[in-house]
Each structure stands twice: as structure tokens, then as C-alpha cells.
């Protein structure tokens, strides 16, 4: 595993559409990618992928890594003429949708025949979506006073460019999914633009960490979970944390990267490594151990103050069962929740190395040390 390897992981992960609730294709890829570095992999009731990498024969503890694999997207609410009305799934910014290329995943007409159980999944498994576009109305035809206004999502339409008759035959159904199109593109300075860096960058970091661990010794069992439905309520994290009942957990997500024009108090520097979260959601002993691991191996990082809800899977995991000492590492990205999110690849690699280093250093004494730190 190395930085190039991380780049490769990311490239594959963002090439697939996996909106909240329909993560199956991404899950499949994650399971494949984890195969070489995990002892066993399974998918649970809600679709979380759980890759277990065993440590020592009698592991002193089990650590959960959680990186959500779902992305925000759209869902069809009505087919009108040859256009689709859509609603958001997760917090999409409607300002960034005007002029946006999309991919529509139709489930096809109801023929009166019995569907197989996984009909919808098959559509995704085939990866066959249809290209569409959100164009809006021409400015010439928009009243002057409305030209400056944000067009609400309810007024936008997806255009498949298909003849009306095809839509009327029921090609697209209410509930069908629409993903934004945002292909992986390299910019200067080791920066990359793509859709769904939130949160595939973290999934890449997590798989990268497993890759690094494959070349190291570690005594703890590692449960690397690609969670589902984070964007609509941390749903996969809630249930997988209950199921796995780890001794310690680290959530991996993205955070707001510093951008000219944005408040420094609310963003994290780019290209300075992962942000280690600090606040009520995070266990001070876990934070301390992450920092020590980073310092020991000269991995740069910044501390991100989080005075309340971190807005990540960490918030759910911390209160599973009897409570779990939880940490959070976040990869700074710009333009979050748009189709052109931007990241520094080195920050993903640093995150992967930090996680692997932290896990490698977990020993028998770690759990006992936590109560003094809380």
C-alpha cells in the first residue's frame, strides 16, 4: 500500500454510484477490495459491509473503523411529460444542481409480472443508468426579478432527452434514483476533483489503512465497516455499532476544507493531514492516542474543535449499548455536497497511515488507560 495505491482505490470507489439506501454496488466493490486484506467479509441486514481483519490469537480488544459509503443524491417523485420531478436524499445543495449532469436508474415498467426479489438491485448491479441533465429555464424567459433567485429543488426538472412516449410507457417510476455525475479529474498539486469524495475518500483511507496493516503487526481485531445511510441519519452506524460492540471506535469522514472566503474558525487547512476531532463526541484518551501515533511517525494533522454533534457516524457510535470510546479523523475537502468536491490525495494517504499506525500501537494496556483520560 502507498499513496499511488490510495489513489487507485479512490478512483475505483468514486466511479460507482451508491446513493443512501442503495449502496449495493459500492458494497460489492468494497467487499472485493477488502478481500486481500481482511480475514472475513460480510454484509449485514441493512447493507453495511463488515470486513474483519483479525489481530492476535487472543486479541486484547476490538476496534471499529466506520466510513460511510453512501453519497447524497436525488429520488424521482413524479414523471411529468418527459421530465422528472426529483427530491433530495441527503443534504444536496440545490444551488449546485443547475447545469448538472446526472445519471438516472430506472426500474422499468410494471408489466404485471412477478419481479424477482432483487430486481431493483439488478439494475444497479448492471451499472446501467441513463444520462440526464438538469438545465433550468433559459434566462431570456425568466422574469428579471427572478433571475437572481435560487431555484428551489421542487422547480428543477431532470431531462433524459427521451421521447415522451418512452417515459409514458413507465420506464422511470416514482422512487427511482438519480445520481450526480462528477468524474474523477486530476488537478495541480496532487489535488483531485470528483463527486462523492464525501465519503469515498474516507472509504479509500479505511481500505488503505487495512493495506498498511497487512505489512504490520497488530494485536487488536479490526472491524472495518463501510456503513450505509449516514447522509440521512447515521443509520448504518447505529446498527453496526450495536452489532459489533467494539471496545474503541474511529469514524472516518470528511470535513470543510479551508477555502478563501470561508471563515477560518469553521474550516480545516488543506494538505496538512487529517483533522483529529476534539469535543464531547470524542474520547480524550482516544484523541490523545491518535495524536501520539501521529507525532511518533511524523504524520501531520490538525485538531478540529467540535463543540457538540460532530455530524458524523461518531455521534451514533459513541452512544451504542453502554457507550464506546470514539475518535474521529476527517479529511478536509472543498465544495462539499456538490459534484465537484476537491481533496488533496496526500491527506487521504496520511489518514490511512495514521489509522494503521494507531491500530498497530494498540496493546493490552490501552483499554485500562482510558478511564483516567475521560
Amino acid at each position, binding site marked *: 500500500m502507498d499513496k499511488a495505491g490510495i489513489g487507485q482505490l479512490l478512483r475505483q470507489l468514486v466511479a460507482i454510484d451508491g446513493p443512501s439506501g442503495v449502496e449495493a454496488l459500492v458494497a460489492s466493490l468494497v467487499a472485493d477490495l477488502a478481500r486481500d486484506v481482511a480475514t472475513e467479509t460480510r454484509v449485514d441486514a*441493512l447493507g453495511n459491509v463488515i470486513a474483519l481483519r483479525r489481530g492476535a490469537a487472543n486479541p486484547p480488544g476490538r476496534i471499529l473503523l466506520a466510513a460511510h459509503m453512501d453519497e447524497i443524491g436525488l429520488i424521482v417523485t413524479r414523471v411529468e411529460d418527459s421530465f422528472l420531478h426529483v427530491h433530495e436524499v441527503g443534504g444536496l445543495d440545490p444551488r449546485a444542481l443547475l447545469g448538472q449532469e446526472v445519471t438516472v436508474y430506472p426500474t422499468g415498467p410494471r408489466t404485471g409480472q412477478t419481479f424477482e426479489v432483487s430486481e431493483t438491485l439488478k439494475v444497479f448491479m448492471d451499472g446501467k443508468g441513463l444520462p440526464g441533465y438538469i438545465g433550468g429555464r433559459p434566462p431570456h424567459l425568466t422574469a428579471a426579478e427572478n433571475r437572481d433567485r435560487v431555484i428551489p429543488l421542487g422547480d428543477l426538472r431532470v431531462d433524459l432527452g427521451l421521447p415522451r412516449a418512452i417515459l409514458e410507457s413507465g420506464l422511470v417510476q416514482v422512487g427511482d434514483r438519480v445520481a450526480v455525475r462528477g468524474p474523477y479529474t486530476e488537478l495541480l498539486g496532487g489535488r483531485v476533483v470528483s463527486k462523492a469524495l464525501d465519503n469515498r475518500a474516507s472509504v479509500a483511507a479505511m481500505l488503505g489503512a487495512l493495506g498498511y496493516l497487512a505489512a504490520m503487526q497488530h494485536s487488536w481485531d479490526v472491524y472495518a465497516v463501510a456503513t450505509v445511510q449516514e447522509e440521512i441519519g447515521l443509520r*448504518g452506524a*447505529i446498527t453496526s455499532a450495536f452489532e459489533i460492540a467494539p471496545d474503541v471506535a474511529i469514524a472516518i469522514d470528511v470535513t470543510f476544507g479551508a477555502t478563501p472566503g470561508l471563515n477560518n474558525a469553521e474550516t480545516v487547512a488543506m494538505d496538512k493531514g487529517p483533522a483529529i476531532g476534539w469535543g464531547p463526541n470524542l474520547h480524550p484518551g482516544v484523541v490523545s492516542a491518535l495524536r501520539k501515533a501521529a507525532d511518533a511517525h511524523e504524520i501531520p494533522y490538525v485538531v478540529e474543535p467540535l463543540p457538540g454533534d460532530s455530524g458524523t457516524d461518531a455521534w451514533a457510535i459513541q452512544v451504542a449499548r453502554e457507550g464506546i470510546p470514539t475518535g474521529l479523523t476527517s479529511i478536509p475537502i472543498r465544495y462539499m455536497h456538490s459534484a465537484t468536491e476537491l481533496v488533496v490525495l496526500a491527506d487521504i494517504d496520511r489518514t490511512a497511515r495514521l489509522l494503521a499506525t494507531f491500530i498497530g500501537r494498540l496493546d493490552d494496556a490501552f483499554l485500562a488507560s482510558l478511564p483516567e483520560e475521560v
Partner: protein
Amino acid sequence: MKGSHVLELTRRLTEAFGVSGYEDEIRSVIRAEIAGLVDEVRVDTLGNLVALRRGAGAAGQPGKRVMLAAHMDQIGLMVTHIDEKGYLRFAPVGGVFGLACWGSQVRFADGTVGTVGLDGGISARDKLPTLNSMYIDVGATERAGVTVQVGDVAAFWHAFAGQGSAWFAPSMDDRIGCVVLVQLLRELAGREIAHDVYAVFTTQEEIGTRGATTSAYAIDPYVAIALDVTLTGDGPHTKPALEVYLGRGVALKIMDKGMISHIGLNQLLIAAAEAEGIPYQREVLQVGSTDARAMQMARSGIPTTALSVPSRHVHTPSQIVDRRDVAAAIALLVAFLDRPITV
């Protein structure tokens, strides 16, 4: 389906009292209705009525544990203050809309009746009313005449009415879900069903799907389905887009504000509906949620969805459902339970 019987059942359930947190009366009404139809009944800590209809299992194909949840509670008003003249100020219990209150009749658990008044009365008729500017008027002419106390709860009151295929009541949300569940148990009587069916009449859905949270933890089912109402795209100027309409069948939940349904479970329901020719509609709801969002999060996660009876004017004192949609919901559940369940 025995038409007039279900109508009368609906009348009984919609007219019983049961505001969130204070469901004693509706619970005992439902308990009487399901006597003899189930093998076990208990009332749990949050007041949920939990009924178990044991499955017959089948050689080589044991039944699954299925949880069906319909909430017994309705929104209402809790008295917070009684002023010197005998007018009652209130706090909402559940999602009460200011626009849906003025002039409504309400009824307390003991039968005391009141009208919701608006500060300023007719002179305030052009302003959007807030709950703080309203009060309950029990028709007293002096403070001493008021027997209601702070903490008492009232529900919006109107008698049930049936008209053609349309049924009217303030509490279709979610007494019609309870009707579906009771009637389902009735139709299963005498049938051999492989699955263990937990018919749970939940409490406190309107104030945070609370009853469903704890009962799902206790039952830990294989799959769970909430039975509730949903909004419709009916009406002259309806926004946002919602392709659910009265009379076109039971609504199958794909997504709402609180959760995304399990795709595999929905596919089983679609397969059953298509096989039996039961009308259904695909629901993507932009506001609101159901007990399903709580059940899905129990323990290690439960494949969950919701079947809803489309209802016009939800959370107002006169909600309308179509009996054909009620029939479709029941028929779909029978068809679903009559088949193997694997997700």
C-alpha cells in the same frame, strides 16, 4: 371483506380517546377487539399493546418473526394554565398545526367538550394564528365552573362518517392503521400462516415514535412493517410532488423524511401485490415519518418498510381515507404473510 363490519370497527376505533402518552381507553377498546384472535397479549412499559399470533411453521421452512406496528395515539392538546375566567391555555402533544385549530371541537378523556378559541376572535381572522394565541373554551361562565385541570389532555373530536367509499374522522392517523391490523387478524383467523406475527399497537408515535423504539427492541423481529397513513397528491394545488391518491390502492413506502425502506422487503410486497392484483402506489414522502424509522434501528438493524392508507387533510380535525385503500392494505398483508419471507 365484510364491509359494514369494518366500517363499524373504524367508527369504534376512531371515536375512542387516546392522545399520545394517554392511550388507556383506545388500548382497552382494541384489546377487546382482538380477544380470541391472538395467542398472547401483554401491555409493556410504554403502554404498547403487544399481541402475538403464533405461526404454524412449516416442515423445512420455519416461519419468520414479523412485527406489524400501528400507532394507537393521536395528536392532542395538554392544558397548561387555567385563567381567571376559566379559559384553558394548552401545549401541543404531537404535531398540531395552528391553522387547523380555531373553532375545532375537542374532547377530554372524561368526555368534557370544548371549542378552541382564538385571542381577538373575529378581529384576528386575517392573521396566521399561533398556538400561544389560542385557548380551549369549555363554555364556563366563571372559573369555579371548570373541572378540567392542568395536565389534562384533549383530542380533536368529531364523529366518524362514511360517505360512498370515503370515510371521515379526526383520527384516521393512525386509527385506520389499527383498523387494518385488527381486521388483518380477523381475516387470518382459521388460516394457517407459517410466520409468528407480532401485532403491536404502539403508543407515543406522534411525539417521537417512542413506543415502536422499545417494542422493536424487545421483539427483535426478522422484518418489520409500520401501518400508518400517508399524505396524498390530491387537491387542487398540491406541492410538492407526491404520486399517491385516494382510491388507487395501498401506499408502499420507498422513502420518507425519517428513513429509506428496505429494498428487498419492498420487492416481496410488490411481488405479492402484483401476483394477487392488489392495487398499490409508490410513495416518496418529503415530510413526515412513521414507526418504521424507529423499528429499522432496533439492535443490529431490521429490514423495515411501511404500508400506508392514503389520507387527505392529515393532522387536521377531519381526515379522509378511502375504504378501497383500506381493503387493499389488508389484502396485501394477507398475501405477504401467506408466502415465504426471505430478505
